[in-house]
């Protein structure tokens, strides 16, 4: 596949960090599920904006403020088209997926959830899609119901169906599991929920970098993701919400920009999306996020998926050949994430030694403690690939891993 490889070399040059060395070894960055690296164009957009056009936005008549507002709103429009939202004002900027989910957990529950109501989540969830619901459930007296997984990491849809009673007020689950890479049948889950008029929040943190998402086609009621996992800057996230829900639920934070008029007696809130964007937003971050999405669009999801599938399959086969190695999450639909352990060796030891040789991967619970409890494992190693990773990196990884196992065994 010389074509693909040449292309990858060119792509890797767009990411300055990929040519760095760690402990004298070339960096092999396999921690993409935690956060992705940034192409030069994103970094440059940030710098250029601060150098040439920075100011606060929205409220200023002056030139810089208007440029900034236009750029900021252009980012919103870009995201609208990226996820196929009907309206730009259904795109709310937050500081990340975590804040987006907290916003919905607090505001939706305040409006719709009463004592004894149910909230459905799954065993696969990231802490950011568990704890906000626990906090809201505690406050409003709701009960959290959990959809368990099968041994291969896929969801027990039968149990889901049986949990879907008319006590349920909202269903919240991830699109792709950050720990196992398993892709959930969210369209089916949304359909089933909508048959009972129950809205669904999708935690798309892991999904948006791997394939195109169409929130209207999915008919998702809320869809959340973070810029930093999509080649964009830190401190930016998106809450997509259907207009009818965003209009219905109360604001989450109060402050500048989210109001129409403020009186001590009575304050009226602003229209969407501003109602949910209190205070000075992460202006530069939001503006640079647009460059990240444009970069991804240029690469194209067709290429991205082909490359990631290649890496996933190649790595899976190679790792399965290692004695004592267990891969967690073997469902058919998988993104390029591999969680594994090696018998008798603590993942922390492997991670530490691999780090010495330049391999950045994650060890631990990956913010999914209940999932690891369900799998009956204390901690795993997780290698997660992006389109800029290569077969050669995987080869070197497998060699290094074997060496570490020998040292530790």
């Amino acid at each position: 596949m010389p074509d693909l490889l040449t292309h990858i070399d060119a792509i890797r040059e767009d990411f300055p960090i990929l040519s760095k060395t760690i402990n004298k070894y070339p960096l092999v960055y396999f921690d993409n599920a935690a956060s992705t690296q940034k192409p030069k164009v994103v970094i440059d957009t940030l710098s250029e904006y601060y150098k040439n056009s920075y100011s606060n936005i929205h409220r200023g008549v002056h030139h810089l403020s208007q440029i900034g507002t236009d750029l900021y709103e252009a980012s919103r429009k870009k995201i609208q088209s990226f996820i196929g939202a009907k309206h730009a004002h259904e795109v709310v900027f937050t500081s990340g997926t975590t804040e987006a989910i907290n916003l919905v957990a607090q505001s939706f529950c305040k409006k719709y959830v009463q004592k004894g109501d149910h909230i459905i989540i799954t065993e696969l969830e990231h802490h950011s899609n568990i704890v906000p619901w626990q906090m809201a459930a505690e406050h409003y007296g709701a009960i959290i119901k959990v959809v368990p997984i099968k041994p291969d990491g896929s969801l027990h849809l039968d149990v889901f169906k049986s949990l879907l009673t008319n006590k349920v007020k909202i269903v919240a689950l991830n699109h792709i599991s950050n720990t196992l890479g398993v892709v959930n049948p969210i369209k089916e889950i949304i359909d089933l929920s909508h048959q009972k008029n129950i809205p669904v929040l999708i935690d798309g943190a892991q999904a948006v970098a791997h394939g195109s998402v169409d929130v209207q086609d999915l008919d998702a009621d809320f869809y959340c993701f973070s810029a930093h996992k999509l080649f964009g800057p830190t401190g930016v996230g998106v809450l997509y919400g259907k207009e009818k829900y965003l209009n219905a639920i109360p604001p989450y934070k109060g402050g500048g920009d989210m109001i129409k008029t403020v009186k001590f007696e009575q304050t009226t809130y602003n229209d969407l999306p501003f109602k949910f964007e209190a205070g000075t937003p992460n202006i530069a971050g939001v503006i640079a996020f647009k460059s990240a999405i444009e970069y991804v669009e240029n690469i194209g999801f067709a290429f991205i998926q082909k490359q990631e599938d290649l890496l996933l399959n190649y790595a899976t086969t190679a790792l399965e050949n290692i004695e004592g190695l267990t891969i967690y999450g073997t469902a058919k639909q998988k993104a390029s994430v591999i969680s594994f352990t090696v018998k008798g060796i603590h993942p922390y030891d492997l991670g530490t030694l691999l780090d010495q040789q330049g391999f950045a991967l994650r060890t631990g619970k990956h913010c999914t403690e209940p999932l690891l409890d369900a799998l009956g494992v204390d901690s795993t190693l997780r290698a997660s690939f992006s389109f800029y990773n290569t077969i050669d990196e995987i080869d070197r990884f497998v060699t290094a891993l074997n060496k570490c196992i020998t040292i530790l065994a």
Partner: protein
Amino acid sequence: MNFTAAIQEEIISEFELFDDWMDKYSYIIDLGKEFGGMLDREKKDHLLVKGCQSKVWLKSDFNAGIMNFKADSDAMITKGIVALLLKVLNQKAPREILDADLFFIEKIGLKAHLSMNRSNGLMAMIQRIKSDAEKHL
């Protein structure tokens, strides 16, 4: 060329006389000063156009197939812009207003200087004029 297009061409050629933006603004300000506006008691809150930093009141009425607009603003530049807009769109049939392509905004450079963001409300005024017209299609 239809009628609204003709008026726009006229406005464009007037603006071509100025090479300096201050002159263009002086001209807009003069338009504002000359514009009739509304009586204070006519300036009802429900007539306010949202999204403008200055206050803009816009009142419409429909008579014999024609839309009739009255407007005012507490800021002179805004008032001048309303005056320009109404030069083109006042006393027209609803269909004509809805179909009007307001190319003069770009041509005289208003668009670059009064971008679509919330602080000036140019877009909001146009939308209000068009949505008022739409009710009488």
